[in-house]
């Protein structure tokens, strides 16, 4: 059981060490240039293949999970978001699902107490939702902030986001909130996997690995910004080289940076083959992205085929005598 998380943990350490020592041994070009390019290619190609695979699969039936009152009689109030019958309703439902994790927000915790009353009680369980939301948004902010390294001049939205992220104005260099929230939320999600008995039982190595990897990325990044420091001009020269397809390896970047870069690259390369593809899947989930109007508007199944049925005529042939005797109408008297 412990190997489910110890192996991913060891793997992330190993990846770190490989890059750290490798860069020290003069392989910076590999960890800084070759592998990142390969990783980005793997990410893009893998992502597209996966999504195309889903998109190619047919949607034979319109089967949304309805989470509220349907549209029926005009005087019965429909829940337009949780049971949408129009594209705009679906759009709002999907927005809420994708940006606010609406379904997860509903999460409850059931507890059964074996006592005189034997009650099952349900309480609202908000922490998973909070942590998930914090994690994803912090990650997004971190990702967007890093566009500073791949653009020159740095566009205004990125600068604005940076200012917002650093709004507490604490310390020098200024503390980024995302730098606190991301590892904290990741640690909470990790702790949940380790200490909640049920979640621990269902967790696989592939659930721990991305968490450790992201923690590794966060730790190396934070370390460079606040503690060990790097030559930021050299780093930008290098990253700009990557996006302009004229890669260079400036001096004095430091091995830690290569380790950081390598872990990020591993994350990108790993992404399409992993559960992280829920990023793409959430958009395509038929139980959420379809309108509940199947009775009003016919849905066509692209592979619908004819099937043998037992016709009325066969039925009547089988039961004619009994039907006549019982006074039931028949098509043929004989």
């Amino acid at each position: 059981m412990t190997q489910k998380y110890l192996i991913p943990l060891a793997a992330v350490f190993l990846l770190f060490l490989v890059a750290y020592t490798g860069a020290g041994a003069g392989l910076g070009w590999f960890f800084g240039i070759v592998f990142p390019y390969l990783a980005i290619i793997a990410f893009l190609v893998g992502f597209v293949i996966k999504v195309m695979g889903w998109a190619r699969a047919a949607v034979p039936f319109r089967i949304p999970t309805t989470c509220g009152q349907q549209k029926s009689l005009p005087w019965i109030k429909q829940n337009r978001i949780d049971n949408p019958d129009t594209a705009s309703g679906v759009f709002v439902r999907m927005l809420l699902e994708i940006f606010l994790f609406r379904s997860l927000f509903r999460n409850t915790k059931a507890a059964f107490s074996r006592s005189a009353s034997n009650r099952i009680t349900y309480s609202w369980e908000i922490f998973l939702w909070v942590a998930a939301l914090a994690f994803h948004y912090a990650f997004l902010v971190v990702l967007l902030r890093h566009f500073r390294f791949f653009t020159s001049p740095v566009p205004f939205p990125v600068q604005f986001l940076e200012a917002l992220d650093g709004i507490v104005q604490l310390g020098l260099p200024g503390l980024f909130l995302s730098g606190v929230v991301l590892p904290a939320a990741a640690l909470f999600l990790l702790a949940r996997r380790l200490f909640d008995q049920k979640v621990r039982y269902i967790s696989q190595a592939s659930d721990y690995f991305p968490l450790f990897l992201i923690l590794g990325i966060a730790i190396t990044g934070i370390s460079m910004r606040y503690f060990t420091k790097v030559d930021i001009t050299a780093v930008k020269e290098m990253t700009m080289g990557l996006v302009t397809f004229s890669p260079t390896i400036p001096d004095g970047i430091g091995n830690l940076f290569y380790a950081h870069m390598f872990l990020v690259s591993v994350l990108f390369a790993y992404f399409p083959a992993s559960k992280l593809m829920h990023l793409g899947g959430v958009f395509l989930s038929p139980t959420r992205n379809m309108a509940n109007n199947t009775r009003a508007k016919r849905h066509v199944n692209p592979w619908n085929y004819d099937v043998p049925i037992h016709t009325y005529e066969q039925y009547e042939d089988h039961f004619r005598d009994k039907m006549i005797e019982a006074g039931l109408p028949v098509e043929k008297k004989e």
Partner: protein
Amino acid sequence: MADELTPDELLDKIDYGTDSGNWLDTTKSVQIRPGMYCYAAKPESVETLSLPNARSWNPTEEDWKLPDNWQQIIHEGIKERLERFRTFKIFMDVCVRCGACADKCHFFLGTGDPKNMPVLRAELLRSIYRNDFTTAGKILQNIPGGQRLGGNRPLTLDALKEMWYYFFQCTECRRCSVFCPYGIDTAEITIMARELFNLLGLNIDWIATPVSNCYTTGNHLGIQPHAFKDMLEFFVEDIEDITGVDCTPNFQKKGADILFITPSGDVFADPGTYTCQGYLILFQYLKEKYGLDVTWSTYASEGGNFGFFTSHETMKRLNAKMYYEAKRLGVKWILGGECGHMWRVIHQYMDTMNGPADFLEVPVNPITGTKFHNAASTKMVHITEFTADLIKHNKLELDKSRNANRILTFHDSCNPARGMGLLDEPRYVINNVCDNFYEMPPNTIRENTFCCGSGAGLNAGENMELRMAGALPRATALKHVHEKYGVNTLGTICAIDRAALSTLCEYWVPEVEVAGIHELVGNALILPGEKERTEDLRMEPLPGCEEEE
């Protein structure tokens, strides 16, 4: 009845303390245990529809008499379904195992068995999918320890048996799907798994025999046409005793306005029979007052569709009767009775499978003029939509006091709730026929409703321990309102519920009775020319008439 276990013993068995090992190691030790599984499909029933591998077999025996190439059949079956169903493909790929679904399943809450957590139920199949259908899985196969690390496993006989056991412990209620951030619907995965089992002839008899009956005799219970007519006429006699009015229905009447189809369970067993009498009274009322002509059919005498629990193809083959008969009789549209999965099939599948129903008209209630735009294409209306519309337009004369002895709560059936959204129509009807209505706690009703524990073909006798365990969350909510408000009647709009909840009540909350909504309508509706009623449809004294007995 769960002979072996008293409610207390069953409660003692619940242990949410999952073991700390790796679930992949537990497959071999899964015991297909009496009380928890349903008997195997009889070969005759499988043969009726020419489904594969009809033979007699026993799940508890070592040899399941599978074809030699069974692994290949399943492999190709999965492959085909991954192309045909986007749901299946996405749900195999995107689960992050966050665990939000874990304690949403009534079977998990009632048994504590970790493999009843929806996520783990799905992982039973997903582990095989990852192993055989993903690049990562194929790479990991070649690395020592890789399979285990990926949570992947090959399709072994033990794995097949484990899946069979647990996918027949899912009632396709979709409650987990409400809470999943990606909308992963275990019902959809269970549907796929059961389709795969059926490729090997691994159905259960409680599904296969109703399917076979439905195919040839027109209904699950195998009631032949003359017997079906007899049964309804028997109700007509009862109603005449109670009300003094003759409610004789039409059968197979060509040119009738509406074809009415309800689950055959309502014709067959109490308390569904009282609901059926309610329909007869309503139709008589509408005929007498407004000249509405409703017909029944012995050929399309089944609203339910156990084909839905077999395969999409079988579902389509059974469902085809509805349109076929409507077309033959030349009715304007179809009205459907109170049933759960029947309505999921009609609402989300029928038109797609067997439509377009261009030989029918967009349903209009001729009495109120209401056009049912929500059923414009499928042309089938739910009876609570129909009755609610009649009540709203003051077209029914109702005497609520005849239900005054009923202190009612309402069980939302899974399929109308989460596969349709029919929530307020039945409540509107209830509030117009009964004064004492109390809701169960919010986490257990509407889209959060808990399954009766016996849906999706699991309403058998031999798996009673499973059913009563799965019934626990519903039962505790019911018990709560029984104790708090003195609720004595559990209203429902599902034929399976009327059977299953009756057993549930008997086991967990014996003081509560189960009633269909149209039983209450039948009690309250004042028929033209009726005598003074002293009894309800159960032939029990009406409130206020007790002393006269």
